[in-house]
């Protein structure tokens, strides 16, 4: 073999990985006669010798061995193999049967669909008041045929069917929250699968049915004297409710109670199936906790009986445990009894309401949702001499909750709300509404909101502003502020429509002529060798502020340059929540035009102290520093220089005024003329060892 061995071949040779043919091919012979390859092999061996560093065994500790023996002797935990895994072939066979059956039924349906429309018409007409069960089976057929029906009654009936289908209920569905939910009885699973939520076009239909208030009444169970009901009674109820629903829709259609204003057709997934649109809604956004309290008012049409109301919150961020429904009027005659979460139906709840009256009753629905947030922004504009600033504040409200909020009165809570843990506890509780007999509403948790409501009738204000809005008041909306203990509540004037995934920026305040102090700071320990520019003012009356705390947010500062008042960006920073009376210091970042260059000019030691053995036990270190400060700006500046000495035992000798900032730091503050330089010198003496004791004595 004439060529040298490759590294891979050397590895194979070293670890006996080569096949017999390769070995026989002369690798060993070649190595015996080739010094270079032998050297490379040696190097490779040395390299792999590093593996031996890990060669030692890891001793099993004295604790581990008895522990292992004890655990091994314990009976092994019994493995539970799910039935479906153990007998997966049964599941496979069942699946094949189901698919085959479905295909077969599909072919029958196709055949049925090809029948003449007239046949379908006559079939539908002959049904009259359909039997509920057969209606379920032929639902798709009815939907298809009804488009061509000229008969008004049939159209009304189809509307009823569709609206019921959209809600996950058919006329055949049980009116009570029976274990057999709509998905079971209807077979479409519309309410159980998130992906089968109502589509927008269905929504457009839904408010038409629901928007008239009396249009779609809550599903009623006639003469239900007890909550527990038999299956036979349910069956009877289904027939009755189906009939009633159809007839009610018919009345609505004849009466023509379609709202003039097009219904708000949200892409939302929350749908109070039997509820009309919101009359008004109030949002209180607790930004610090990603929490929003929603209070909305709707007029429900109840019958003198038991009423079931269904609410779906699919694709929203609503906390279902926080749902609360209270009558806003006739509270003595309307009793909200329970909220039921039916089995196998996700993101759906049903309220059971007992009403002694028939007709419209205003209800207030409250719940918590997350996904709504707000953030404050500020824009400061410095005057040319940089002694005054105009500060404009904005609030941006963003809606990512999955729900559109139309004409919502929006309130923003400033300050940290210490309720997050309680809300989390609420979500974790075993019972969604606490101990039986003690219904828990949001007000029990957010006392802040309760107090505010006592102060101001937000909903009433909302209505008033809505009226004002209609007459064309186009001035910028005011954000009303109210103090609330250590919190602060900003109420945006009027109402706002904030669709899902949209955000809106609103002006909060605009204050002119705030007197400011511009200060440059140099502190090597904090910012290195850069000089940092600060603008400071106070949130008080002297500075034309102080009415409200300033929420945390981003500040951008602009300066005016040139005679044409062009704005130039000076710097920006995030500020924290600033209470009334507190000073604000805005860090605008490094200043390029102001520089500080410290130089150590001399160093010496003296005053040595010796111990009994003659060893050095203490001494002084003396350093002379010179700092060159350069201001290349066209404005006079004030600069603050902080020097750290790493020891509390120091003295300073300088002609410049300074103050002892803390035990280990001294601070110089000096003015500088435009485009000038200044030298600042000081001599620092630090004491070490026993000299520290002597100095301190």
């Amino acid at each position, binding site marked *: 073999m004439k060529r040298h061995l490759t*590294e*891979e071949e050397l*590895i*194979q040779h070293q*670890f006996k*990985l080569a096949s017999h043919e390769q070995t026989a091919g002369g690798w060993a012979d070649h190595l015996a006669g080739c010094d270079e390859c032998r050297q490379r092999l040696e190097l*490779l061996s*040395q*390299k*792999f*010798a*590093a*593996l*031996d*560093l*890990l*060669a*030692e*065994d*890891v*001793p*099993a500790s004295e604790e*581990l*061995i*008895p*522990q*292992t*023996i004890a*655990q*091994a*002797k*314990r009976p*092994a935990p019994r493995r539970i193999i799910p039935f479906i895994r153990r007998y997966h072939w049964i599941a496979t066979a069942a699946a094949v049967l189901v698919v085959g059956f479905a295909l077969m039924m599909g072919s029958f349906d196709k055949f049925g669909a090809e029948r003449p429309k007239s046949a379908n018409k006559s079939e539908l007409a002959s049904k009259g008041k359909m039997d509920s069960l057969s209606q379920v089976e032929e639902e798709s057929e009815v939907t298809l045929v009804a488009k061509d029906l000229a008969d008004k009654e049939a159209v009304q009936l189809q509307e009823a069917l569709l609206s019921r289908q959209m809600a996950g209920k058919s006329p055949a569905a049980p009116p009570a929250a029976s274990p057999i939910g709509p998905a079971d009885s209807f077979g479409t699973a519309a309410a159980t699968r998130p992906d089968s939520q109502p589509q927008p076009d269905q929504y457009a239909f839904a408010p038409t049915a629901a928007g008239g208030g009396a249009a779609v009444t809550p599903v009623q169970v006639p003469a239900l004297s007890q909550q527990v009901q038999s299956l036979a009674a349910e069956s009877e109820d289904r027939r009755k409710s189906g009939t009633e629903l159809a007839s009610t829709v018919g009345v609505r259609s004849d009466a023509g109670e379609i709202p003039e204003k097009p219904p708000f057709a949200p892409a939302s997934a929350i749908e109070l199936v039997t509820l009309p649109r919101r009359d008004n809604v109030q949002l209180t956004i607790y930004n610090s906790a990603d929490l929003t309290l929603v209070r909305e008012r709707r007029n429900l049409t109840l019958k003198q009986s038991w009423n079931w109301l269904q609410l779906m919150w699919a694709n929203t961020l609503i906390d279902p445990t926080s749902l609360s429904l209270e009558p806003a009027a006739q509270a003595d005659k309307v009793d909200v009894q329970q909220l039921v979460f039916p089995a196998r139906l996700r993101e759906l709840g049903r309220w059971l309401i007992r009403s002694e009256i028939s007709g419209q009753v205003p209800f207030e629905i409250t719940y918590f949702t997350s996904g709504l947030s707000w953030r404050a922004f500020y824009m400061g504009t410095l005057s040319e001499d940089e002694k005054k600033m105009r500060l404009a504040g904005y609030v941006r409200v963003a809606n990512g909750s999955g729900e559109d909020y139309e004409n919502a009165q929006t309130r923003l809570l400033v300050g940290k709300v210490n309720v997050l843990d309680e809300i989390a506890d609420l979500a974790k509780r075993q019972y969604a509404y606490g101990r039986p007999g003690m219904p828990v509403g949001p007000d029990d948790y957010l006392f802040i909101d309760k107090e505010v409501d006592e102060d101001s009738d937000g909903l009433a204000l909302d209505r008033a502003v809505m009226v004002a809005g209609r007459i064309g008041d186009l001035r910028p909306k005011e954000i009303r502020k109210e103090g609330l203990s250590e919190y602060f509540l900003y109420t945006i004037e009027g109402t706002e429509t904030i669709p899902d995934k949209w955000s809106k920026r609103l002006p909060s305040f605009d204050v002119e002529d705030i007197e400011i102090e511009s200060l440059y700071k140099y502190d090597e320990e904090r910012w290195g060798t850069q000089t940092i520019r600060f603008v400071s003012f106070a949130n008080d009356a002297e500075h034309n502020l102080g009415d409200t705390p300033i929420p945390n947010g981003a500040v951008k500062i602009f300066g005016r340059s040139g005679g044409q008042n062009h704005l130039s960006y000076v710097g920006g920073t995030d500020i924290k929540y600033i209470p009334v009376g507190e000073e604000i210091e805005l860090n605008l970042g490094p200043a390029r035009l102001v520089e500080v260059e410290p130089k150590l000019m001399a160093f010496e030691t003296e005053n040595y102290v010796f111990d009994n053995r003659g060893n050095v036990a203490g001494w002084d270190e003396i350093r002379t520093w010179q700092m060159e400060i350069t201001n290349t700006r066209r404005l006079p500046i004030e600069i603050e220089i902080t020097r750290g000495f790493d020891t509390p035992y120091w003295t300073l000798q300088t002609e410049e005024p300074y103050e002892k900032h803390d035990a280990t730091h001294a601070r110089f503050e000096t003015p500088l003329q435009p485009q000038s330089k200044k030298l600042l010198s000081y001599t620092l003496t630090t004491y070490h060892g026993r000299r520290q004791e002597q100095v301190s004595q």
Partner: protein
Amino acid sequence: MEKTDKSLIDAHLQGDSEAFGELVRRYGDSLLGYLTKICRNREQAKDLFQETFRKVHEKAHTLRGSQFKSWLYTIATRVAMDALRKGNRVRMVSLNQQVDCDGENCPQLGALAVAADCDDPAQEAVKAENKQLVRQAVESLPDRQRVTLVLAYYQGLSYREVAKILDCSIGTVKTQMFRALRTLAQRLPDISGVAK
């Protein structure tokens, strides 16, 4: 006279409670070293160690004639591979760093601790650092290659035994071993001049 593995297993099957303990002590260090090299976490290795001997205890009656050691390593390898597969899906990170900072899993502290207790701290610190580099190189190997390397190199098993443990052919073992070594040749530190 020391009892053979087979006689200890037989005694264990006969109900001798001491026999099983003897087996754990006999192979404990070696098996824990093996599992520690395979896993990236000593605590996990201890868990797998216990799991392996639990299975040995449970399945002792299935040992038929074959050598106990390779049977033990077969079980340990399967247990470890299962854990690695799960671990690849969900990487567990110990929140209790004190447990891991014993020199094995915390290189800086380990190097300092070792260096502080020996005659030549600098040399020992370098060695500890190299050890960490080797560990990193080995840990960077794919699971299958790492297991093959540990069995063949560190546990001193023949390729035939490794093939039996891993339930594959000798050719596959050699391929895995070769790939592992080829990778390590690039990643291992040069330790010439450092005391091992």
